[in-house]
């Protein structure tokens, strides 16, 4: 009323008195949020009251960690910023694993947490936790809003920070009194981030120097990480690789950025990468890293990693450059822009000898498993999934051997097709990730390739999938072990399987009890038809595959070794 008498008609239209809760909902909608995940609690009631009739699809997980992974996978599958809400104290604490998972893999997310009344902060109030203190190391940025006047701007800034530069989770802590206090809003979309600057273009001179180096190289390798997918630069990457004629290897998170069905694909590199990728990297004369960060699972012993190669490193995060490996030509900026520019400047080069060598490595050291075994091999299940889904499914995973087999034996052709916790390696990610992805992509086939132990961690979310009638598929590669741990115990602890065996429930029964479809397969011959039945299910469907219990992931670079010092090549050879 006041504003009407005072200001011009135009600003009167935009300005109104709102509660903090209303500002939150309005700003979320302004930011394009149509789906969010989260859990209630006392200090969030004013906000949930405003969400009651908001045009936002709201998914309640069974545990905040699940909700956080769902929002994360929603973001990974779409590129949009995922949103999760949790209450103060225990709710906020339950987000920590999910935030750390998103942080390590640079996933854009906004987390909103309830907080006790401003005047109680610091008094050990009921359900008080120092949420910004606890989550600071696992978020790109966080803050607490103590004045309702700052609320809209802070949320806007959170979305901007989460989704730009090197993406990541941003958390905003919301004391309940801020949700209920009122202030006049004026429709302004201002932000105030004097310390947040982006470099998009990439230095033109550096790009030209990189192009020259590429044109000169006889044995280049393009090493692609998740940054290319985050930057939506898969198309530009493919065009660049094709124009310059480069072999392409990907990190776990980079899978999908380049089409693995192409002969130039070297598939994944690193600890459980393909031998041909690791050999090519070790022998290349130029390594072109794009959106990758020279993680220890990729480099093995850093000193000997691509030791004879010049290195070009393209990354949006200047701090990633020369952190682990020193670089000859750094290019800081957005991969999409830089790759497009590079493609213009590079020349096509035949590199016959190099590609011949690569073809030989691919022929001599393929990924293999024992196809004649009468027991169900996990790799066989994944290959069958690959064939029956024509390579088009979205795959989520837990962490362990099954994750590595899912990376090795499903061939990805599209960005955002493979959703896995790479940096943090969070068991329990698979099921909630599949749920988040299915909500984002209702018409796609979404499969969680999971381990028994990983599934145990978050299987309660199955009832979330049932509630929302999501046709997700869960394939448990059930070896009755924390398989990856058992493999290390076999190899490095003299087969003393200390505490790594599991006493599991009957998953088909659990699935049925929660309202999903449950099936068990223990005969190899039943694998194809069970997968077929699973794929035609409209309800959430869990299939328990009783696989070879002591299968190992090969090849393997033991910790601290160079990546061409792989174990298991002889074992793979013997399976030919």
């Amino acid at each position, binding site marked *: 009323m006041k504003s009407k008498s005072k200001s011009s008609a135009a600003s009167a239209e935009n300005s109104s008195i709102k509660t903090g809760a209303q500002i939150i909902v309005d700003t979320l909608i302004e930011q394009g949020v149509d789906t969010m995940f989260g859990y209630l609690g006392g200090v969030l009631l004013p906000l949930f009251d405003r969400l009651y009739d908001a045009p936002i699809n709201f998914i309640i997980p069974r545990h905040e960690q699940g909700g956080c992974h769902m929002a994360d996978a929603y973001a990974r599958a779409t590129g949009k910023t995922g949103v999760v809400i949790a209450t103060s104290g225990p709710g906020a604490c339950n987000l920590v694993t999910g935030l750390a998972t998103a942080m390590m893999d640079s996933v854009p997310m906004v987390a909103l947490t309830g907080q006790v009344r401003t005047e109680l902060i610091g008094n050990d109030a009921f359900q008080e936790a120092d949420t*910004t203190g606890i989550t*600071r*190391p696992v978020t*790109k940025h966080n803050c607490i809003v103590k004045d309702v006047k700052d609320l809209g701007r802070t949320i806007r800034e959170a979305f901007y*920070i989460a989704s730009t530069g090197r993406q990541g989770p941003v958390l905003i802590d919301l004391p309940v009194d801020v949700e209920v206090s009122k202030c006049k809003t004026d429709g302004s979309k201002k932000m105030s981030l004097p*310390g947040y600057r982006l470099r998009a273009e990439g230095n033109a001179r550096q790009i030209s120097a990189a192009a020259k180096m590429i044109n000169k190289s006889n044995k280049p390798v393009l090493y692609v990480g998740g940054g290319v997918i985050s930057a939506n630069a898969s198309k530009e990457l493919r065009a660049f690789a094709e124009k310059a004629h480069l072999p392409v290897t990907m990190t776990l998170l980079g899978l999908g950025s380049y089409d693995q069905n192409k002969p130039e694909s070297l598939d994944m590199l690193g600890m459980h990468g393909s031998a041909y990728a690791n050999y090519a990297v070790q022998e290349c004369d130029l390594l072109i890293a794009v959106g990758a960060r020279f993680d220890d699972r990729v480099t093995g012993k850093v000193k000997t990693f691509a030791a004879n190669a010049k290195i070009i490193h393209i990354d949006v995060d*200047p*701090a990633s450059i020369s952190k682990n490996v020193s670089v000859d030509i750094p290019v800081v900026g957005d991969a999409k822009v830089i790759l497009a520019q590079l493609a213009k400047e590079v020349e096509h080069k035949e590199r016959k000898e190099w590609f011949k060598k690569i073809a030989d490595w691919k022929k001599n050291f393929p990924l293999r498993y024992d196809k004649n075994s009468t027991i169900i091999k996990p790799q066989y299940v994944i290959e069958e999934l690959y064939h029956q889904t024509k390579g088009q499914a979205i795959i989520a995973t837990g962490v362990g051997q099954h994750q590595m087999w899912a990376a090795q034996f499903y061939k990805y052709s599209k960005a955002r097709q493979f959703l896995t916790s790479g940096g943090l390696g969070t068991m329990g990610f698979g099921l909630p990730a599949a749920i988040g992805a299915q909500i984002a992509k209702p018409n796609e086939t979404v499969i969680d390739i999971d381990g028994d132990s990983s599934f145990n961690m978050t299987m309660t979310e199955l009832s979330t999938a049932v509630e929302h009638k999501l046709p997700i598929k869960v394939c448990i590669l059930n070896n009755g072990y924390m398989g990856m741990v058992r493999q290390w115990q076999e190899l490095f602890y003299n087969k003393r399987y200390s505490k790594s065996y599991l006493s599991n429930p009957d998953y088909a029964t659990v699935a049925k009890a929660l309202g999903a479809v449950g099936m068990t397969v223990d005969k190899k011959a039943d694998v194809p038809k069970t997968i077929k039945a699973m794929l035609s299910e409209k309800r959430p469907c869990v299939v328990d595959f009783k696989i070879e219990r002591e299968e190992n992931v090969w090849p393997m670079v033991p910790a601290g070794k160079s990546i061409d010092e792989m174990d298991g090549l002889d074992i793979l050879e013997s399976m030919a």
Partner: protein
Amino acid sequence: MKHIISALVENKPGVLAHVAGMFAARAFNIDSLVVGRTEDPELSRMTIVVIGDDRVLEQVRKQLAKIVPVVKVQDFVGQPVVARDLMLVTISAPPAKRAELLSLIEMFKGKVVDIGLKFIMVEISGPEAKIDAFISMCRPYGIKSVARTGTIAMSRQA
């Protein structure tokens, strides 16, 4: 090797915790960290002395710049720089030793800021090495307690 890094940061709660937490999480070695207001009420300046080689320094710089409320990061490599510490030190000073001590303080351009029957408190500022030298000169008399600010610095062109 010691490096001085200066960071302008937004004057907001949590910034110091963020910076200190980042140093701890990344296992960087802080020798000293000083925070104070600037001419702009929205900004504070942190002066941090880190120990490490050039590579560490580069990472520290980049990781600091990544923190959202950190507005500007500067190191002083290759620049003439003025770097100063401030110290308060209480030295035991029985009457018999006083004259001797006072001339020492004079030599170091220190200032007596408190005095008792058996002690004097001295304020002294200057480059770190000068402060260290003063401490070692005073040690034989008996140092009761020391409070130092850590280094603040500015490049001469600034």
